[in-house]
């Protein structure tokens, strides 16, 4: 076992069975020190289970999880992690006492604790709430406390399980940028779970796509982002329009069996220069986020396109969809 090149965590043939089904099956996965890995997937894909297996919070039914090159027990791994679970599960008491609790569990010296508490309260803008009882906090504040509590332990591996789900968009955005800053400074390894590709792109160095307990694709962020290896991955990464090559007009050069276009990149109305044109029939008007859009059929494939600089087409109307070729991906 070469000590320098060993990843921090390595999963080998790890599987977890529950109630007769295999809910997680990961033949191979590596986590290196200092890297941020996002596990992206739908609800029920097994992301949380994977997170818990890595962190020693769930026992694998089969397989081994290596720590620094040697087989490890769940207890071994628990020693180097701190976790933020989906709901902020805070202990009865004040915000400060919660941040201190983890340090007490870890045996961090009493003298050090107040300083660290103060540091992390400040980092997550919680200083004014230090003596507040936790049952009075808002959802966002509670989640911040949960994060501060985990970060105060300066873990080697930080585990985040969809920690931003219960937050409203502005709070989420703030927290994401704060967190990125903290991770950069602390240089800890992070494994975090999300179903939101924007969070993944903001925080992650590497992405693993999970579906039904299996990893479909894993690699550096840019690579997975630009070259999704299959439909499920593509969809998770936002390529919601998936057109089989045989449905496309002949003018479009084929580079794979499926053309992937983001919802925001397919437009009806103003045509981009050098854009491809795809004929379709409008079905109904809709709103995507806050942009007026239309659901249309290309042959028998439904797509969603943004309406740009034009009136929304009426149902049944023939339309021309436009896309910039540099924004598409092939699968």
């Amino acid at each position, binding site marked *: 076992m070469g000590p320098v090149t060993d990843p921090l965590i390595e999963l080998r043939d790890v599987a977890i069975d529950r109630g007769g089904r295999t809910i997680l099956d990961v033949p191979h996965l590596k986590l290196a020190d200092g890297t941020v890995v996002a596990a992206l997937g739908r609800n029920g894909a097994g992301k949380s289970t994977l997170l818990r297996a890595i962190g020693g919070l769930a026992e694998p039914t089969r397989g081994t999880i290596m720590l620094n090159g040697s087989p490890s027990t769940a207890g071994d791994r628990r020693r180097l992690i701190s*976790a933020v679970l989906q709901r902020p599960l805070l202990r*009865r008491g004040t915000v400060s006492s919660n941040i201190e609790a983890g340090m007490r569990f870890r045996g961090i010296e009493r003298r050090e604790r107040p300083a660290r508490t103060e540091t992390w309260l400040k980092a997550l803008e919680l200083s004014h709430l230090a003596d507040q009882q936790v049952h009075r906090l808002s959802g966002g504040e509670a989640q911040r406390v949960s994060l501060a509590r985990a970060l105060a332990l300066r873990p080697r591996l930080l585990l985040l399980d969809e920690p931003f789900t219960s937050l409203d968009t502005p709070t989420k955005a703030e927290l994401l940028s704060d967190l990125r800053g903290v991770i950069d400074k602390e240089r800890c390894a992070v494994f975090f779970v999300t179903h939101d590709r924007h969070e993944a792109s903001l925080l992650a160095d590497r992405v693993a796509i999970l579906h039904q307990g299996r990893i479909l694709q894993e690699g550096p962020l840019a690579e997975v982002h630009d070259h999704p290896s299959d439909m499920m991955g593509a969809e998770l990464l936002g390529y919601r329009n998936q057109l089989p090559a045989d449905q496309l007009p002949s003018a479009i050069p084929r580079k794979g069996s499926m053309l992937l276009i983001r919802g925001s990149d397919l437009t009806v109305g103003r045509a981009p220069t050098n854009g491809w044109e795809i004929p379709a029939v409008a079905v109904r008007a809709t709103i995507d986020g806050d942009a007026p859009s239309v659901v249309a059929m290309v042959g028998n494939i439904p797509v969603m396109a943004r309406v740009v600089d034009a009136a929304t087409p009426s149902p049944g109307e023939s339309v021309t969809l436009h896309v910039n070729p540099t924004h598409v991906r092939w699968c």
Partner: protein
Amino acid sequence: MGLIWEGFTSALRLLWNRDPETMEILWLSLRVSLSATVVALLIGLPVGMLIAVGRFPGRKLLLAAVNTGMGLPPVVAGLFVTLLLWRSGPLGAAALLYTPTAMIIAQAFIATPLVAGISTAALQQVDPEFRTQMLGLGAGRLRSLYEVAREARLPLLAAVMAGFGGVISEVGAATMVGGNIKHQTRVLTTAAVQQTAMGNFGAAIAYGMILLAIAFLVVLVLTLAQQHQSLWAR
């Protein structure tokens, strides 16, 4: 009605003057029932934790047994312990029948299911993920269980008080295994029954009033604890 007033004033007088016989009976009642409650806590709380947090075959059966035990009539508990402790019984050599120890044992049988059952309910109120989160912050396995209990500490306090309340006021087991022997195994409940049997209703009511006072104090403690939740939090 005059008897109730007479009983009330008797109770006050006995307590104020520290009437030696009354003090002896009161002290023994507290000693026996508190000890039984301690035993019930030491057994019942872990059982409650086991049922609430554990996953093992037969868990539901254990819960059913605990819930059934909660309805155990004290007289039956007394009978069962008598059969164990009397001379011809398996533990007869210990000569424990008609001692306060026998009463503690019988009352422990009564209080333990109460403490276990209510503890289970109390601990099940804590988010099941809470323990995982504590483990995820570095708490050891036992420590994480302690943290779960700490979250449920107020309903757990209620469990203990329920156990105590159930035994301080029972008379069936205390009579059968204790024998209401003067200076040895006479407690408030058995003394009250004896006074009633002898037609001394005033004295019986006096003992009853003292029991009520104890019950009131217990409820008071619990209520204050619940009201001052924020004081207890750190």
